[in-house]
């Protein structure tokens, strides 16, 4: 690189998945999701992220498979472009520039060269229209697509509000209380509306729509939890509808099964409801999916269904409504109250996950390591309920102990619980050790362990600061009762207060000898052995917002930030103010491995980052305009091995990496690497089924059948007859014997499989060579990504033919094999 690397703010992991419905690849092996500016491809079998397709400059709002080529994917974005991807290789094929913001994308099998998008109506605010875009076949990567024709006017911006019916004969759209159906052939537009009156049962607005794949039936979801099934909508007056009602809150999404026999619906309750035969009485539930269901999508073979949740999780569900897998990155919780904490054991980022859970998020793999249930109560997904949530988390230095605080806001007094968890080596998880009800009279504002690496066990101390004007010191005590199950428990050792001010922050010095507790405007320093008040610091006016001790060579300094916009540094030896700076600091985060301290300030509607060492008031590094949103939380995550950083300016990033969470709950980090370096394409070789099996049974028998059909064509009818006769005894005997007298399946399996196989010794060397060649071809494809897709398909069909030729040569040996099978003694069957 020519210029020294510049520090860039990089979004990492867990960008919102809410752009659009997820799409299954045609063989249901991969799942494609819009994730922020990217399109992510997950493996359905292993849940891992296989591809990250980036190129859009803004949020991706819609993804659809190309109906004419199932290896290609269209994606639309707010940046006004539609991209066509080859998702197996993760390369963009074409970019169509439309010009205006695209809010949703639909494709139809019947329309040859056009897709449908929702765009804002020009000149009018908050009005949207559905237009079809003609995708020109012009050569070149970037193509302008300006041929727009308006299909429907006055549609909703949400992608859930438009659906195409029965092979694209009509399009239905809902907005507020109106439903409009447009028939393409007849060019007829029918409008229906439900009563807008806000009844007792909530409002009647439409929220989502789905069309029956084979019949003329439209299902609409409403904000009051009802589902309506519309029929006969050809007639403006004589239309009918029936109502299904189970949801108590807004129906978030609807989806018909592939055959159309059942309807899936989901909502805030986080229950997936399966309605059979569109009747109210037959329904199945899959409850407790974790959080509200945002989108439901079905795979093309109907075997899988996937739900996207509001907390950024994807759940894959079997067709028989069994939970199968869950793909989860960083789970978005409504408010990260715990702050960003780093687990010393796994180096995972720990923060609020599902309600009442603590998530351990692995930054390297963008995966959730595990989710620890802290509250251990059933969470009720209902708006307006006051439920206990996790508010504070602290780890001891080596991650052996975990302290959590949960609270439930009550009108009179909050319900508080302090829990201490012990890391059990055997089960490799945290185990509840002590539960303390109402540790403080009022909210707990801060909590910390005494961080002492060497003296972990006997000197472990936990300090909690509360709004009830005291801080409490908790210590481990040995249980005297020999019959008690555990040998240690925690109890309160000391209660300290200062002039009846609320305790707001607490912090231990690096060696654990001093405890700093801030009481509103004053910082008090206590001896951690005798619990005597040593000295106080104050920088009026303004209450103390953050405090921290310096580390390593700067351990004699205490840093504090006030909400009056001052950052102060006191010398603990002279008990005097060393320096102060005018800075509105929101976050103060010391690096555990170096002297550096990061301060994030909020100035004139932008966040800025200042990195400094306590011993000098001049910052080591300043990054203005870090992002436009407020940053509330930050954490230094130690690197596994120190990174090589060329520039002296960024040396503070050598040993640990700074992560921060914005108000919008996006996790960001600072990186010196350029975009290309970060986005190295994964070298995984992906295989996609070229010809799609129709049913699972055909997956089993497909190859065999195809061989036979080849033989049919090659050898004519006589051979076919022979073949059938040869083939039949073994298989027929197998199929005609009652199941209860058959030997175990594992015993029969080899016989059955053998009857299907081509015997080994006759495998020609030619074929082996062919296989090798095929493999090399694939690797070639990998390196040469520009290769045309159609060409690849042609090549891929060739081995089938080759195989066919082979089998006709092998028929004699097969005969022998089958005869052998027939000779096998089945006389035992007659004994029954």
């Amino acid at each position: 690189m020519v210029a020294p690397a510049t520090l860039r703010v990089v979004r990492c992991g867990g960008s919102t998945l809410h752009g659009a419905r997820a799409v299954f690849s045609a063989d249901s092996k991969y799942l494609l999701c819009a994730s922020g500016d990217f399109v992510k491809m997950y493996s359905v079998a292993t849940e891992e992220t296989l591809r990250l397709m980036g190129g859009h400059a803004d949020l991706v709002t819609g993804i659809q498979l190309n109906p004419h080529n199932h290896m290609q994917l269209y994606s639309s974005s707010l940046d006004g472009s539609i991209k066509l991807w080859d998702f197996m290789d993760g390369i963009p094929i074409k970019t169509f520039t439309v010009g205006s913001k695209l809010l949703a994308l639909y494709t139809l099998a019947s329309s040859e060269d056009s897709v449908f998008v929702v765009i804002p109506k020009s000149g009018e605010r908050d009005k949207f229209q559905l237009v079809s875009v003609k995708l020109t076949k012009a050569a070149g990567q970037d193509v302008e697509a300006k041929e727009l024709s308006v299909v429907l006017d006055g549609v909703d911006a949400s992608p859930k509000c438009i659906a195409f019916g029965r092979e694209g004969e009509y399009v239905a759209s809902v907005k507020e209380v109106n439903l409009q159906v447009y028939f393409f052939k007849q060019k007829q537009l029918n409008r229906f509306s439900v009563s807008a009156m806000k009844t007792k049962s909530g409002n009647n607005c439409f929220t989502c729509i789905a069309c029956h794949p084979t019949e003329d039936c439209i299902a609409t979801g409403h904000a009051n939890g009802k589902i309506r099934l519309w029929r006969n909508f050809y007639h403006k007056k004589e239309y009918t509808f029936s109502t299904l009602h189970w949801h108590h809150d807004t129906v978030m999404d609807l989806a018909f099964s592939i055959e159309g026999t059942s309807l899936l619906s989901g909502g805030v309750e986080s229950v997936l409801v399966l309605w059979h035969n569109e009747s109210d009485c037959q329904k199945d539930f899959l409850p407790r999916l974790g959080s509200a269901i945002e989108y439901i999508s079905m795979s093309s073979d109907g075997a899988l269904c996937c739900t996207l949740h509001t907390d950024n999780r994807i759940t894959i569900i079997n067709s028989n409504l069994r939970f199968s897998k869950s793909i989860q990155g960083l789970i978005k919780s409504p408010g990260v109250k715990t702050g960003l904490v780093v687990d010393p054991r796994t180096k995972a980022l720990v923060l609020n996950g599902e309600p009442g859970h603590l998530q351990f998020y692995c930054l390297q793999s963008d995966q959730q390591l595990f989710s620890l249930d802290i509250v251990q109560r059933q969470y009720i997904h209902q708006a307006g309920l006051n439920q206990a949530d996790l508010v504070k988390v602290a780890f001891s230095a080596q991650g052996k102990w975990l302290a959590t605080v949960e609270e439930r806001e009550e009108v009179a007094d909050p319900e508080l619980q302090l829990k201490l968890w012990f890391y059990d080596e055997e089960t490799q998880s945290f185990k509840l050790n002590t539960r303390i009800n109402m540790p403080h009279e009022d909210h707990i504002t801060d909590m910390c362990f005494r961080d002492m690496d060497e003296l972990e066990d006997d000197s472990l101390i936990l300090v909690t600061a509360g709004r009830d004007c005291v801080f409490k010191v908790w210590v481990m005590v040995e249980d005297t009762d020999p019959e008690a199950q555990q040998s240690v428990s925690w109890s309160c050792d000391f209660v300290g207060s200062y002039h009846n001010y609320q305790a707001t922050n607490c912090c231990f010095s690096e060696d654990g000898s001093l405890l700093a507790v801030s009481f509103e405007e004053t910082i008090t320093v206590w001896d951690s052995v005798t619990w005597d008040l040593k000295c106080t610091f104050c920088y009026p006016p303004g209450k103390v917002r953050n405090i921290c001790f310096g580390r390593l060579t700067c351990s004699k300094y205490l840093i504090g930030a006030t909400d009056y916009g001052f950052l102060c540094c006191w010398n603990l030896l002279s008990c005097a103010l060393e320096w102060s700076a005018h800075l509105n600091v929101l976050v103060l985060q010391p690096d555990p491995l170096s002297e550096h301290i990061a301060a994030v300030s909020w100035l004139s509607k932008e966040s800025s980052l200042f990195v400094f060492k306590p011993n000098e008031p001049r910052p080591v590094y300043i990054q203005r305009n870090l992002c436009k949103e407020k940053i509330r939380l930050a954490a230094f995550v130690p690197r596994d091995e120190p990174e090589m950083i060329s520039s002296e300016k960024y040396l503070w990033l050598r040993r640990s990496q700074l992560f921060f969470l914005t108000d919008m709950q996006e996790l960001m980090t600072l990186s010196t690497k350029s975009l290309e370096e970060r986005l190295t394409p994964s070298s995984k070789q992906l295989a996609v089924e070229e010809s799609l099996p129709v049913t699972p049974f055909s997956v089993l028998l497909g190859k065999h059948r195809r061989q036979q059909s080849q033989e049919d064509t090659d050898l004519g009818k006589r051979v076919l007859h022979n073949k059938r006769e040869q083939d039949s005894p073994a298989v027929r005997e197998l199929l005609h014997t009652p199941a209860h007298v058959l030997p175990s399946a594992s015993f029969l399996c080899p016989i059955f499989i053998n009857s299907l196989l081509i015997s080994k010794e006759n495998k020609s060397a030619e074929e082996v060579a062919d296989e090798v060649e095929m493999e090399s071809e694939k690797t070639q494809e990998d390196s040469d990504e520009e290769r045309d897709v159609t060409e690849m398909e042609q090549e891929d069909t060739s081995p089938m033919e080759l195989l066919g030729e082979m089998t006709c040569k092998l028929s004699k040996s097969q005969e022998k094999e089958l005869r052998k099978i027939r000779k096998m003694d089945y006389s035992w069957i007659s004994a029954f």
Partner: protein
Amino acid sequence: MATYKPLVVQAIPKLGERITQDTLYWRGYKTPVQIKEFGAVNKIDFSPVPPYNYAVTASSRIHIYGRYSQEPIKTFSRFKDAAYCATYRDDGNLLVAGTEEGSIHLFDISGRAPLRQFDGHTKPVHVVGFLSDKYRIFSGGDDYSSNLWDIPSATEIVSYSEHTDYVRCGCASKVNADVFITGSYDHTVKLFDARMKSSVMTIEHGQPVESVLLFPSGGLLVSAGGRYVKVWDVLKGGQLLVSLKNHHKTVTCLCLSSSGQRLLSGSLDRHVKIYSTTSYKVVHSFNYATSILSLALSPEDETIVVGMTNGVINVKHRKPEERKEKSQKKRQPAYRTYVKGRTYMPKQEDFCVGKPAKRVLRKYDKLLKSFQSSKALDAVLEPPIRLYTPEVTVAVMQELHRRGTLRSALAGRDEKQINLLLTFVARRVIEPRFTPVLVIVADMITDIYQPVVGQSAIVDRQFLRLQEAIGKEIDYQEELLEVLGMMDTLFAAFTKKRAADLERNKSNGLTETIETNMSN
């Protein structure tokens, strides 16, 4: 996908007495039997052989009671004046007792007249006992002497006049037939060896010694006098091992449990305290109606007999071991069906289908799972749960409140159910652990059923009871606050004084160190 999480019932640690193995053991006695004697009971002694009769010495009589008899099965009453310290010999055949006039009588259990009479003491004899060789008797009298007697010849072997006050207690070693100890009001315990002319060891107790005891091993000696019970190590030359001060009046009697693991002490403060002999902590205590003079424990701790100053003996028998046998056993399926298939070992080619573990949910959990609030509340208002585990009822109420359905669950109930609810609330609302939740419940009930007040006499009465309970609680809390205020002022005064004391001590210490430095 998460499974349903059952309701967590908050277990609140119970304050007050902790239930230990000891409390369970020592509580296992039936209600006591009281027997009235003629005077203060100065000695109770169990026969060491079955059927473990016990001799009670009170006034001028010795009564022998059978284990379960309330009437004496035998009485020795040929004393001119008070008798003291009737003690069985190891074989249970002979009984010896001292008298007020200074003579010692030896009885055969089956006879009536004394077999022997030993004269030599000039003052009342309060303590007599057999040495462990069975042929000698030791005694201690108010004439300050301790004597040793030969039974066959009825003669005095040796007399020690080392005590300087009344000798009131004594004990013979079980290990060595020549060793016995006596305790005296001169604050000492002396150890005598019959082969020596004088005492072997003198232990200074510090208070008039009321009772002494030797451990079966002979190595440890326990003395009781004043408010103290002291344990001495004899083998270390009479070193004080531990001093126990758990009574607030004079300790009058000591006794060991049959296992030797527990030491019992009775006192004029009406308490019997039981100590562990390993930690010397009080593990249990009994209290009685009046001051205790004597105490005995039968072998296997079957019976505790306590004699008191008002002449009442209190007899407690151990409850028979509860046999865990349920008469009405639920008919189980036959063993054959039960084990069917359990013993089958899967062969290699067998395909095993695992059985998912079945989770059993309580009834209220099932109802809560399916969001049936009213029914869940009904389920926990059923008698067994409501009466014995009210915390479950309250936990369900709290959960319903958390879900915001408590009001609808409480509403729409008939007279009987309201009555039930109100009874529960009125009874439990004053319990601190339930108060926060039940106050809300009571509030809601009064809110919901306000319009129907006056329609049912039963419900009205319950409302009044609730009001009364809450009123009482408020008064009580006010009183407590007053007490707290008073205590605060006291404490404030106290701490100031103590701080001043400390300061003075500190200054003294400082001057002292300075002085020592000077002298150095």
